[in-house]
Structure formats: structure tokens, C-alpha cells
């Protein structure tokens, strides 16, 4: 794992090396620049008064006491903000979704605890909170809709909609499927129930809105893409005189929560417009855990039919998700359906997906938002293996799509190619030594110790390249001083793109990585790109960086050839020097060529443009670039306490060409541990009245350093058909970790016949299931 070093200035291939990150020296010395680190002259701060009840009509709002607090500069309700010209909408539209009327603050009704009702703007946050606490709201409380079961039966929580059904999706009816199940040798059935999670970036959301002069609205934002956020604000603004510019320097994690600005951020912009002063809102952790968008809370019922040789014949899937009240996307499981077959030959699929509104916090897409397909399928594959009496690894091998069978078209219409599920499975199983483990497991059981092995496999659709996700762009310049400036539409919230993109560019331009400066923090430079989301940046950003670098290198070569009296084909750039093949003595620093390009126009070819710059917009191969992985986990379950201890974790992934393996492994590790948190610890739950019951990190348990295994990484490298051969890797760990761990726990508890399909697998729940199983015998 040690970081290999590269001698500055010496030619090397940077792509593929575990280089230390360019951003780390800044972040390790306290010189990062997160949104709350920025203070502007005259800046005011916001606190919200939020709903204390899940569902009510607002009878009256009393602001008199709040107004008496010195230092309060503005108090706004929904009606007050209406005049500001800022509107909220769902950027992630879903076909046929039924969306409520979005308001920045609660208008006449509240539909969840934490619904912002009143916005207080004051000299500082302390004063704003003092005043927000004095707001008095008189509610006419109604019976809340909390669960999906209630949502299906209850009157709509949004009166403007005719039901709580926010959207639905399905495969066309296929009468053959019922017949297949009737005749199948084996039918396996189970429902995986995933609890609700909070994304929990360590930096909560935050925004500063500061109007510059008359035209520009400058926004500092904790987000996943300044370009995307600027488009969102601009499209939601009804005032043609306002132009939005979004700056996002360091961002402390996002994971989907910050994919678009939401009600509070847009309300802050509205307040800045109304007050004519810079306004800041920084979300606190109570708000983040109870009022920010949340994730998961889905059920997936999976039935699998196998022939007598344990080969898959059909799957029948029913998926439901709780959207909460104000979802960023009303997605009924479109990608869950599209990817349901995963890496297996599945001839037939029946699928129904439904999304339900409820009086809870809204849903947002969290790292691998469609993971229900992998969790449901892989957990049921293991249940099938137990039921059929076959090794779960053998069951997978028998059904997995090999490289020779690719391209392979799923029954959902997606065509999969350039993936290696079989190779990754074999790699993790090889690391584990299956036979030795089974012997150890059997011996342990005789001592009353319960060990389990879980394996899971998946294919991930990364780098979607349609609609607003179609492309990324790179603008690269060689400055007169020879440094390389690259303005990219990528954005890092910890992804390390400042390093990885510099690695790609340094290779293509033949310069040292230290010579490359990456800029991705300002929507007013560079061009549109969607930023982080959908595991796309290595592929789309990397492809754009390669394309622009090659155009630029060609310009350098042409100019150098002209200046050095050589053929362009004989020019090579390496280590920041321009060389002519066979003529070592004319080698020239790149800086000298660049200086000439800018400052000595008379020496340029007559048709050459001044300067050294190139722009390239790259569309990755549509619709997706697929990556894949197999993980294995060994755990021990204490059957008295129900505590799960993870003993080993082996990850084998294929994300194509790795730009920086340490960054790749960092992405996988972070995702895996988020998945472990989802399986064992984390739970956002509501009581019957719709009150959130996890409001601090003492109640909402994130994994700590005590809860994680040392992850063993291995890699299969099969290049994709994208520029550079890269594949996305940001979400995979979070997608595959849950079924891997579920399968390990279920394997450990196989003697008790416990399926472990209802998450989280807390000690209390596991020990109860074990006790029930023992009592039943």
C-alpha cells in the first residue's frame, strides 16, 4: 500500500501510480477552503424554524417575539420568499413522476418534521437561532403517513396529488413467466428490507449568496458540481437580470446529498436578493440528520426460478421505496429494474416498482441509489444456494456471463460489455481458500462459534452519458511560464480529481505532475459538466482531459517543429522538454516554446493562433461504461449477543485502467464501510407520529475505526472502450458491501435457518432471530 514516489521532472507514466494527492498538503495543514470558512463583509446568517410535527395545517405563525431580538435583519415565511423570484424543482426528473408543488418554505401546511416554516436572518447564527426559537406556530395536527403500507392506503399527503403514488415502473407483462415459475425445479423467494439511511457527509450542507453589483449572484456552495448548481439556480430564477456564478472549493463529502441545491440553499439565495446583503446558511448536524434528504428505505421482493441444474430461468421482482415528502427524485426504481439481472444469464424478468410519498424527510440519490438490485439479487442467490444445496460460489459460476458471451443483452434491453464478473469472482475466492474456510467453519461450529462467508458479484452502470450527463469538458493551457493550467468540469468532494486528472494530463503532455494545476471550482470558467455523480469523473473527465491534452500536444509539436526546423512527427515532449528525434542538441524547455507562442508572434507559423490552449468535450460511450466487482467477507456472529465481527474482507474490482490505485482503493474502502454501516449500524427511523428518533451521532451510528476490517484489495484490469480505458468506481463499494455482509451473516447463522434479510442486522435483532429459531426447534 505504500505510496510510490516519482522524481519530479523525470519522465514517467503517472497513470497507474499510487501518487500522493496534490490536495493533501493543503488539507493537512488547515488551509482547505470549505464554504463555512468564507466570511464576507456585511454577511448575515440564517437559522430556520422547522416543523415540530409530521403533518398539519398551519393555523397561524406568530413572529412578534422573534422580531424583538436585536440583530435580526429579516424574518421570512413562504409568502415573503415568493416575491424573490427563486423557485425550487426536481432536477432529476423521472418520466411520468407525479411531483408536488415545491415551495422554499412550508406554505399553509407542513408535511414532515423538519419542514422549514420560517427563515430568520440575523447578524450571526447565535442570534438567528435565538430568534428562530421564539417563532410560535399554531398547528392543526393531522394523522401522519409514515410507512409505505400507510402511504398506499392513506389520502395523499400532498393535496394537489390524487394519491401518494409518486411514480411507478415495470416490465411489460410476459405470460410465460408465470408458467416458468410453475414448472421450475426450484423457486426461491424473499424480501430484502433496507432501512433508511442518512448520507452523513462530515461537512453538512452550506451556502453563501452574495450579490455582486447588479447582475451577478455569487454563490459559495457545498455541492457536487458548481456548473450543475449554477444551472439549477439559473433555471429556477425568474429574474433575467440575475446571473449565477457558483464557487465550490473544498467540499467535505457529499455522497449524493449535495447533487443539487435544495430548499434551504435556494431560500438563502432568495433572502440575499430580498435583503441586498450576503447571506450564509450552514446546516447543523441536527438539521442534517432530521431535515436533510435521506436515502434507501426500500423493500425488494425477489422470486427466482431455477432449472434442475441450478440455472436461472426467471426473476419476479416487486420493489417499493419511501420517497418521503420532498424527494429530490421520485424514482420508482428505473435503474434497479434495468440492472436487476446483474452479471447473470437471466432469460426472463418480471418487475414492478412503486414510489410512495409519506410524511418523512425526502429521498435523495445516495451512492449507488439503485443498489437494491444487487442487494436483492445477491442475497437471494445465497438463499437459493442454501435451499438448493449447492455452494453459493458454484451457483454463481454456473450462471455468470463470461467474457466470451459479451456483448450480452439483458432482458431489460441493456447491453453489457467489457466486464469480468467471472474473473473477479475467481480472484476473491482464490484469496479466501474456500475449502480451508469450510473446514475451519465446521470445526468452529463444534466449539459453538459461528463463522460465515459471504460472496457477492455485480455489474455497475457507470458514467451515464445521456441528457445532462452526456459529456464533460477540459480546457487546458500551457501558460507563458510553462506551467499547465487545466480547467475541468469535474469536481471533488474527496474524489482526488486534482491529483488523478493531473496524472492523466501530465502523461499526455509529457510534463511533471507538479507542473499541472487543476481548476474545477468555479462555474464561471470552463464549461458545463455534471460533476460528481454516477461514478463518472475518471471516465468522462479523464476522457476530456486526454482529448484536450492531445490537441494541445499537437499544437506544441507543430510550433516546435516550425521553431526547430523539424518535422512535427519527430517532436517528442518528455519531462517538460521538447526533443527532436535524432538531434539531442536542439532539446528545448517547453517553457521556451510557450513563451514564444504568447510573446513572439512574429516567429509563429503565419497561420498559427497565438498562445497554447485547447478545449475538448468528451462524450463517453453511451449509455454506460460498465465496471464490475466481486467481494468476499468472513465474519463471526456471537449467537448470545448477536454481535457481528468482520474477520476478513476481500475486494476484487475491475474499473479498467486505474489512474491512481490508491485513489481507487480509497473509493472502494469508503463505499464498503458505508455499506457495512448500512447493514450493521445505521438507522434513521420514525415513531408512529412521524418523529425522527435518530437526531445525533449518538443515535445514528456511523461505523468507527473499531467496526472495520482491514480490506484486502485485488484488481482485474480490463480496459473499457472509453478514452483511456477507464471505468467508474465511486459507488461500487457501497453497492456490493451490503449483500456481501448479509450473505456472510446468513452463512454463519445457516444452522439456525435465519435469512438476515431485514436490515440493519443489529445485535438485538440477530439475537432475537437466533433465540426464536432455537425455541422453534
Amino acid at each position, binding site marked *: *500500500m*505504500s*505510496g510510490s514516489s516519482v522524481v519530479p521532472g523525470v519522465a514517467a507514466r503517472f497513470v497507474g501510480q*499510487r501518487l*500522493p*494527492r496534490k*490536495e*493533501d*498538503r*493543503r*488539507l*493537512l*495543514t*488547515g*488551509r*482547505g*477552503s*470549505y464554504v*463555512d*470558512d468564507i*466570511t464576507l463583509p456585511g454577511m448575515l446568517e440564517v437559522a430556520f424554524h422547522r416543523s415540530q410535527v409530521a403533518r398539519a395545517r398551519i393555523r397561524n405563525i406568530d413572529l412578534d417575539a422573534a422580531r424583538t431580538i436585536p440583530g435580526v435583519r429579516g424574518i421570512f415565511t413562504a409568502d415573503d420568499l415568493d416575491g424573490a423570484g427563486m423557485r425550487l424543482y426536481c432536477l432529476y426528473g423521472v418520466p411520468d413522476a407525479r411531483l408536488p408543488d415545491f415551495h422554499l418554505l412550508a406554505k399553509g401546511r407542513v408535511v414532515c418534521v423538519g419542514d422549514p416554516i420560517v427563515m430568520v436572518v440575523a447578524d450571526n447564527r*447565535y442570534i438567528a437561532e435565538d430568534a428562530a426559537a421564539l417563532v410560535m406556530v399554531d398547528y392543526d395536527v393531522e394523522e401522519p403517513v409514515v410507512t409505505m403500507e400507510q402511504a398506499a392506503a392513506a389520502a395523499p399527503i400532498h393535496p394537489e396529488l390524487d394519491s401518494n403514488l409518486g411514480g411507478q415502473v415495470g416490465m411489460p407483462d410476459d405470460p410465460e413467466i408465470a408458467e416458468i415459475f410453475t414448472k421450475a425445479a426450484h423457486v426461491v423467494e424473499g424480501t430484502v428490507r433496507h432501512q433508511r439511511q442518512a448520507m*452523513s*457527509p*462530515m*461537512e*453538512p450542507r452550506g451556502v453563501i449568496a452574495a450579490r455582486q453589483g447588479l447582475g451577478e449572484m455569487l454563490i459559495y456552495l457545498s455541492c457536487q458540481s458548481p456548473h450543475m448548481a449554477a444551472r439549477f439556480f439559473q433555471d429556477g430564477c425568474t429574474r433575467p437580470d440575475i446571473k449565477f456564478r457558483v464557487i465550490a472549493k*473544498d*467540499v*467535505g*463529502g457529499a*455522497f449524493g446529498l449535495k447533487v443539487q441545491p435544495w430548499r434551504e440553499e435556494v431560500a438563502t439565495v432568495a433572502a440575499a436578493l430580498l435583503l441586498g446583503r450576503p447571506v450564509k446558511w450552514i446546516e*447543523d*448536524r441536527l438539521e442534517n440528520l432530521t431535515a436533510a434528504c435521506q436515502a434507501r428505505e426500500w423493500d425488494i421482493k425477489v422470486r427466482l426460478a431455477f432449472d434442475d441444474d441450478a440455472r436461472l430461468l426467471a426473476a419476479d421482482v416487486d420493489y417499493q421505496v419511501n420517497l418521503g415528502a420532498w424527494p429530490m427524485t421520485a424514482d420508482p426504481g428505473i435503474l434497479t429494474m434495468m440492472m436487476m439481472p446483474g452479471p447473470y444469464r437471466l432469460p426472463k424478468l418480471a418487475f414492478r416498482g412503486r414510489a410512495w410519498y409519506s410524511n418523512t424527510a425526502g429521498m435523495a440519490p445516495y451512492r449507488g441509489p439503485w443498489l437494491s438490485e444487487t442487494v436483492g439479487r445477491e442475497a437471494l442467490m445465497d438463499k437459493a444456494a442454501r435451499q438448493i444445496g449447492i455452494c453459493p460460489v458454484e451457483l454463481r459460476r454456473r450462471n455468470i456471463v463470461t467474457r466470451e458471451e459479451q456483448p450480452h443483452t439483458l432482458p431489460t434491453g441493456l447491453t453489457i460489455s467489457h466486464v469480468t464478473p467471472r474473473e473477479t469472482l475467481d480472484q476473491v475466492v482464490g484469496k479466501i481458500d474456500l475449502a480451508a474456510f469450510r473446514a475451519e467453519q465446521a470445526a468452529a461450529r463444534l466449539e459453538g462459534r459461528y463463522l460465515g462467508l459471504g460472496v457477492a458479484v455485480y455489474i455497475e452502470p457507470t458514467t451515464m452519458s445521456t441528457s445532462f450527463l452526456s459529456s464533460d469538458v477540459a480546457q487546458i493551457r500551457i501558460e507563458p511560464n510553462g506551467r499547465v493550467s487545466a480547467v475541468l468540469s469535474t469536481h471533488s*468532494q*474527496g*474524489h*482526488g480529481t486534482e491529483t488523478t486528472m493531473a496524472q492523466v494530463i501530465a502523461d499526455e503532455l509529457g510534463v511533471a505532475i507538479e507542473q499541472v494545476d487543476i481548476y474545477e471550482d468555479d462555474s464561471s470558467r470552463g464549461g458545463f459538466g455534471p460533476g460528481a455523480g454516477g461514478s463518472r469523473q475518471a471516465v468522462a473527465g479523464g476522457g476530456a482531459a486526454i482529448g484536450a491534452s492531445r490537441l494541445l500536444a499537437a499544437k506544441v509539436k507543430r510550433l516546435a517543429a516550425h521553431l526547430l526546423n523539424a518535422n512535427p512527427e519527430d517532436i517528442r515532449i518528455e519531462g517538460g522538454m521538447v526533443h527532436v528525434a535524432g538531434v539531442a542538441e536542439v532539446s528545448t524547455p517547453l517553457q521556451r516554446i510557450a513563451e514564444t507562442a504568447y510573446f513572439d508572434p512574429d516567429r509563429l507559423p503565419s497561420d498559427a493562433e497565438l498562445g497554447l490552449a485547447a478545449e475538448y468535450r468528451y462524450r463517453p460511450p453511451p449509455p454506460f461504461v460498465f465496471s464490475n466487482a466481486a467481494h468476499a467477507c468472513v465474519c463471526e456472529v456471537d449467537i448470545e449477543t448477536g454481535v457481528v465481527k468482520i474477520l476478513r474482507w476481500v475486494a476484487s474490482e475491475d474499473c479498467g485502467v486505474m489512474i491512481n490505485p*490508491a*485513489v481507487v*482503493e*480509497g473509493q472502494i*474502502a*469508503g*463505499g*464498503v*464501510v*458505508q455499506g457495512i454501516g448500512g447493514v450493521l449500524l445505521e438507522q434513521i427511523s420514525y415513531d408512529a407520529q412521524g418523529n425522527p428518533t435518530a437526531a*445525533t*451521532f*449518538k443515535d445514528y451510528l*456511523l*461505523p*468507527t*475505526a*473499531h467496526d*472495520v476490517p*482491514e*480490506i484486502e484489495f485485488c484488481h482485474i484490469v480490463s480496459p473499457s472502450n472509453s478514452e483511456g480505458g477507464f471505468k467508474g468506481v465511486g459507488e461500487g*463499494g457501497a453497492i456490493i458491501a451490503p449483500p456481501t455482509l448479509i450473505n456472510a451473516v446468513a452463512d454463519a447463522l445457516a444452522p439456525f435457518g435465519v435469512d438476515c434479510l431485514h436490515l440493519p442486522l443489529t445485535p438485538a435483532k440477530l439475537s432475537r432471530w437466533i433465540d426464536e429459531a432455537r425455541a422453534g426447534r
Partner: protein
Amino acid sequence: MSEHHIEVDVNGAPIRAVVEARRTLADFLRQNVGCTGVHVGCEHGVCGACTVIVDGKAIRGCLMFAVQADGAAVTTLEGLAGPDGALHPAQQAMLEAHGLQCGFCTPGVVLTMAALIADGPVSEADLHEAVSGHLCRCTGYQGILRAARKLAQASGEAAA
């Protein structure tokens, strides 16, 4: 609100200020002193991002009021590297081990490690225990624990 005159040594520089009694040390360091490397992640003492060193001990800046630091010496992440910019061993270990991604929890993790190794030789288990008091959402702790191992090894070598 009551106001108090305090004098705090922050990273070697004396700071005099008038603060409200309710002002947290974390807010004081960020807003009055400009040490924005102090990160506020939960304001209830769990996440550890706001950890600073007060009179040699790693404490949570959100659970201490600025008035309680009157007369104390405080080190934040800004004050950890040498005057020549040389990284502290905890910073260097985190850099080499890819111990950070978004960098938000990092100040607390580094200062906890730094306070611990300043007390003398430490084992990997000691450091593992100490960093388990910090929440990191990005790294899965893999790089942080590699950094802890490096530091423990260096600490053992220094003690030998």
C-alpha cells in the same frame, strides 16, 4: 449576554478577545482567530472534527467554551507543521498513507494522533483506540489506520 475578556495562546501567538459566555472554543478559534482548520461537524462532541490540543490534551472544541480556555495554550492544525513548513509526523503519515479524502475530519484525526505521540511512545493499538473517537465518512478508516501503524512504528523506533 455576558461578555468576558480572555487571553489564549493560539499556535504560539497571544490572542486577547472579548467573548460571550456561550461562545464555543471552536467558534472562537474559527471566527475570532481565523483558524478555519478547526472543523465543526456535529456540535455534540461525537464526530471529533473540531478536536484541538489544549494544554497538551486533545479536546473537542465544540464541547468547551472559549472562556474556559482563558490562560490556556491551544494548538490547531494550522500550528502543527514546523516554521519551515515541514510536516509534523502525524501529517506526514496521513499524507503518505492516503489517510484522507474530503479532508473535513482530518484536522481532528491529526491532532488526536499528534497529542498522543507527544506523550511518548505509543502502540498501534493505542492509536487505533484514539482515532476510533473520530468519524470519517470517506476513507473507511483504511488510510487512517495505515497512518496510525506508520506512526506507531516510528514511535517504537524513536523509543528504542
